[in-house]
């Protein structure tokens, strides 16, 4: 195992990158990467945040690197297998996530639920229950839907008006109460999806709600 040398603190912000308004120091490559991966010490993070708050070029680089890293292909030895539309693998993964209590990440374009939904094939309907004409309380929102026969897990997704995912959870229940999270006031959209054992997809499709204080 290679030995790692210790490094001086982040105050040594040297001008290594191409983002150099004259006379200004910027984050070096290691600092940018460490910031994104949560590897800076608290003191170094504070210094980096202070610099970033005042430096548009460094912020731009941070955003670009993050987007590139998130969309980059994995090295060949770690390339992910596509999730099968049918079979026990998908169902087992969902159930494992439910058991561990991990929320699913935002689905990739290859997600079988999204793919089937876009193609309109094999999409059954999950009937949502709405009350109060789609108005929910910010501190006590309740979502419910009719169960689908033969299904044991549902993916609940909450998005804002521009489509950003606010919350995503996998649950075995047909009821989800958000009483510990205070939702932002205004319009939000929710949907529930289920991947059935036979490969069919069921969904409520997008439902609009109005969150009020």
């Amino acid at each position, binding site marked *: 195992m290679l030995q790692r040398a210790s490094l001086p603190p982040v105050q040594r912000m040297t001008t290594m990158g*191409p983002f150099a308004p004259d006379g200004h120091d910027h984050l070096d490559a*290691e600092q940018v990467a460490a910031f994104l991966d949560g590897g800076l010490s608290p003191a170094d993070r504070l210094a980096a945040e*202070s610099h970033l708050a005042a430096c548009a070029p460094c912020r731009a680089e941070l955003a670009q690197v993050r987007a590139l890293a998130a969309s980059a292909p994995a090295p*060949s030895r770690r390339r992910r297998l596509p999730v099968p539309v049918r079979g026990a693998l998908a169902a087992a993964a969902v159930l494992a996530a439910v058991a561990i209590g991990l929320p699913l990440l935002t689905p990739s374009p290859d997600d079988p639920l999204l793919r089937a939904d876009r193609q309109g094939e094999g999409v059954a309907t999950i009937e949502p229950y709405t009350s109060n004409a789609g108005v929910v309380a910010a501190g006590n929102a309740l979502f419910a839907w009719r169960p689908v026969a033969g299904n044991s897990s549902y993916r609940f997704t909450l998005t804002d008006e521009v489509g*950003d995912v606010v919350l995503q959870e996998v649950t075995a229940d047909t009821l989800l109460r958000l009483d510990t999270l205070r939702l932002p006031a205004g319009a939000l959209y929710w949907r529930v999806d289920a991947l059935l054992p036979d490969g069919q997809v069921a969904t409520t499709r997008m439902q609009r709600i109005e969150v009020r204080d």
Partner: protein
Amino acid sequence: MTHPLPPELERLLSARGSTARERAWDALIAEWTPLLLHVARSVFHERDAAMDAYAAILEQLRQRDYHRLRQFSADGRSRFSTWLVVIAKRICVDVHRRRYGRVSRAESAAAPGAAAERTARVRLADLVGDSLDVDVAATEDDAEARLRRTELREHLSEAIAGLAPADRLLLALRFEDDVPVRDIAGMLGMPTPFHVYRALNRVLGLLRTHMEARGVTDPTP
């Protein structure tokens, strides 16, 4: 937290002899070429230019006995993939600059950036003061109104300067750079966009309190 080195990088940096080193280098490149091309294509849409940039990345990574790679291995604060994206992007930007020239200081300081900052301040002031209007493109020449607007901008700047660095960064990303909330969450390590919304609401509340403490209860000039 120290991130482990990818095995192909460890093999390269510990390889003895030119043959072993070449083999290890080939193995490293084989694994990470897709990522490097991904970055090169993000800067150069034309294939030949992207391949030139890719070649430049490889050349720079090899220089001085893989100096940059050794620098990374000594750091350990990030994943290799993240660090490689940063390095590759910077090299591509340098290549782009050499090919097409650097944007002049006058060009970079021209209207788009300045106007964007002004727009950002107006939006931020709108959110803090509801219908606060600090639009500099004033049509009336009432001296008192102009003075009021100047005071409001100064109070807002003072309020922002008093925030913690993380809060100032959040405001800059959202209101100056117009970064989507989902991307802000990823950049700042927040679990969901909802956490970003909560943080923004808290920060705007702090600004509102600061303004009210300075007698700014009426947002109109």
